């Protein structure tokens, strides 16, 4: 009996595996939406897309009008000290000088009905808003659109990339989980012949060679601008501390080294007291800030946070408990918690970082590519700092 059962199991496994080998491996063709009228119809939808709005009432698609002034690349950026803004050139301007490899030509047959798969980094209210924005644009083009989340797990994201390739989409949109793992992921998608647009998280420069374009927030640029506001408020002097993003990703560098290297030139009188990455839990941030207040006392006059929600709440609670509302706080935004804290005066300024717009811009860029439009290698969302003066304009919050 035991042997029979084992035999049965082995047989079932063998049959299914053998069947799989001879089955059509990843050969299902993508949606064939091409048609002579499709391009014209697709181009005609531009006005409809422009009219879309995000949950906060702001226009959904906002492309940075002027783009970004890109300085000449130093011969060896890494040889420069870390507090020199040009040290970060390769990361900050990744993609601007990329040498594209094996990039497929646009089919120039319109975006309507195209199959597009979006792979994000993980579950978060921001991600939900991002997918909502992407879906709004995809719906206008009647795309066969699907979003996948690997829940911050690289192994799962790699598996999802395989699965997406297997489905042979017309285009793949990817938020790489980590800047440095992105080159191999992009290379693999490129080798499989699937057109790729990366968005939101800046990958290492090599990854840009394998994708059509990158879209997303100008995190470095935003934080350089935000740091000027901060320094002006602080009178360009005093001790400050940084609460960092999760190590590894581009926000970690942009939101710490961006302002730090900027202030080394703009406000050299500002001294960095400490920098820590406590994660995204309010209680851990609160503990960290309380420790700083004990350790540095009156010396600390400013805190820069990589996140305005959980980290913002933790900072606010710690400062209230210590009676140190004089400390000037800035953060990356713009969550509901962050905007509420700006409104109440607990945070001085946050960056406008439209989650819906981020996803929407990626899908719109894909549509532009299907339409045969010439694309820049990088498309930024616009820069804007939210303060108490205009925070009301961004309610209700996107997430």
């Amino acid at each position, binding site marked *: *009996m*035991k042997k029979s*059962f*084992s035999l049965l*199991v082995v047989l*079932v*496994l063998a049959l*299914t*595996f053998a*069947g*799989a*080998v001879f*089955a*059509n*491996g*990843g*050969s*299902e063709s993508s949606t064939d939406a091409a048609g002579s009228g499709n391009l014209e119809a697709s181009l005609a939808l531009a006005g409809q897309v422009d009219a879309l709005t995000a949950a906060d009432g702001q226009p959904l698609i906002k492309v940075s009008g002027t783009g970004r002034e890109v300085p000449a690349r130093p011969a060896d950026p890494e040889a420069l000290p870390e507090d020199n803004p040009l040290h970060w050139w390769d990361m900050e301007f990744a993609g601007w000088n990329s040498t594209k490899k094996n990039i497929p030509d646009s089919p120039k047959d319109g975006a309507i009905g195209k199959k597009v798969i979006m792979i994000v980094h993980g*579950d978060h209210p921001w991600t939900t808003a991002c997918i909502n924005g992407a879906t709004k644009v995809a719906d206008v083009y009647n795309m066969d659109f*699907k979003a*996948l*989340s*690997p*829940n*911050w*797990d*690289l*192994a*799962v994201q*790699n*598996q*999802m990339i*395989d*699965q997406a*390739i*297997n*489905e042979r989409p017309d285009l793949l949109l990817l938020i790489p*989980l*980590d*800047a*440095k*793992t992105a*080159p*191999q992921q992009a*290379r*693999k998608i490129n080798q499989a012949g699937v057109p790729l647009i990366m968005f939101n998280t800046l990958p*290492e420069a*090599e990854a840009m060679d394998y994708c059509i374009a990158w879209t997303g927030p100008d995190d470095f640029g935003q934080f350089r601008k935000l740091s000027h506001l901060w320094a002006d408020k602080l009178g360009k002097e005093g001790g400050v501390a940084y609460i*960092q993003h*999760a*190590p*590894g990703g581009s926000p*970690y560098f942009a939101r710490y080294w961006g302002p730090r290297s900027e202030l080394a030139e703009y406000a050299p009188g500002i001294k960095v007291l400490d920098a820590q*990455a406590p994660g995204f839990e309010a209680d851990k941030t609160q503990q960290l800030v309380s420790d700083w207040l004990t350790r540095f006392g009156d010396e600390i006059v400013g805190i820069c946070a990589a996140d305005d929600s959980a980290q913002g709440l933790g900072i606010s609670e710690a400062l209230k408990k210590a009676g140190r509302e004089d400390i000037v706080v800035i953060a990356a935004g713009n969550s509901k918690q962050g905007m509420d804290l700006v409104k109440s005066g607990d945070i001085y300024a946050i960056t406008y970082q439209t989650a819906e717009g981020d996803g929407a811009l990626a899908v719109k860029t894909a549509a532009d590519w299907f339409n045969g439009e010439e694309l820049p290698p990088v498309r930024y969302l616009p820069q804007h700092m939210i303060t108490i003066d205009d925070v009301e304009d961004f309610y209700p919050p996107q997430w």
Partner: protein
Amino acid sequence: MMRNKINKKQILSLGDRYRIYVLFVLVFVVMTLFAPHFFNAWNLTSIMKTVAMNGTVAIGFTIILIVGQLDLSIGTIITFAAVIGLGLKDAVGYGVSVPLAIIAGGLIGLINGLLVAKVKINSFIVTLGMLTALQGAIYTITGGNTIAVTDDQAFAISDWLQHQIVPMLTPRVIIAIVLVVSFSIFLRRTRKGRNFFMVGGNSKTAWLAGVDSDKYTIVAFVISGVMAAIGGILFAMESAAATLNLGTNSLMYVLSATIIGGTSMAGGKGGVFRSFIAVLTLTTLYNGIVLLGLGNEVQIFISGIILASVILYEAFVEYRHDKVVGQRPELLKELNTIQ
């Protein structure tokens, strides 16, 4: 009549013993029927590639549970080995850095094992401490940065690790399968292998039989460390990068799979091959869920339901067994037949 009853019990017994195989076939067939793009060589290869890391790690973790211990540090050992292996690659090449990473995993296991077996500290505490210490060490070594290798040689090795030597089996998958089969044979067919079960199942019997429990406990931790390191370094070589949270999700994944596979947390019972099939089952399930267009929250929910059901079932069997011990010997004999 009696014969029919026995046959029914025997079927139940086999169903219980081979439940993970039944579950796997069930999941596989359901996904083949309902999940689009599931049943093709590309997707099945993708599943096997995903299984390779956690399947390898599950070998060591199963042996740890068999000896009645727990190793919470496997996730950080995965990351640590990946960081060592890739971090030293430019300086000494993979030829040296990979063995060093695996040795590092073994040494961490050795420290865990010595503290548990010789200093008699609870393995939960020891490995929790090791997990925290290693996390700190990883952040100190890397400065918070992902380690990536982007030279041609690294990409060539990465490509080779992803290439199918035989259909659906890449080198990483083959290594995992060879390790699983070897350890299965070792544990079931050799006296030393069976001693691991004795140590975890009944330490007094082990002592009376002259089995050195401490030695087997230490060896179990070393194996766990080495397997986690192999899983981690091979995955990192294939990705050409070692992220700092690489192994974070592996602990829960491997723990769930090992228990679903029938390894008892109380020790003395389990199997490496069944754990591997359980990892394969969970991976197939998650893969199918994604292809069905369902979200990550559904994955978590379903795996939670499966795990809870298996734990409840195990508890029920244990309760039923304990209830008749010493009171109804004839019932106990009958129950043992079923189990």
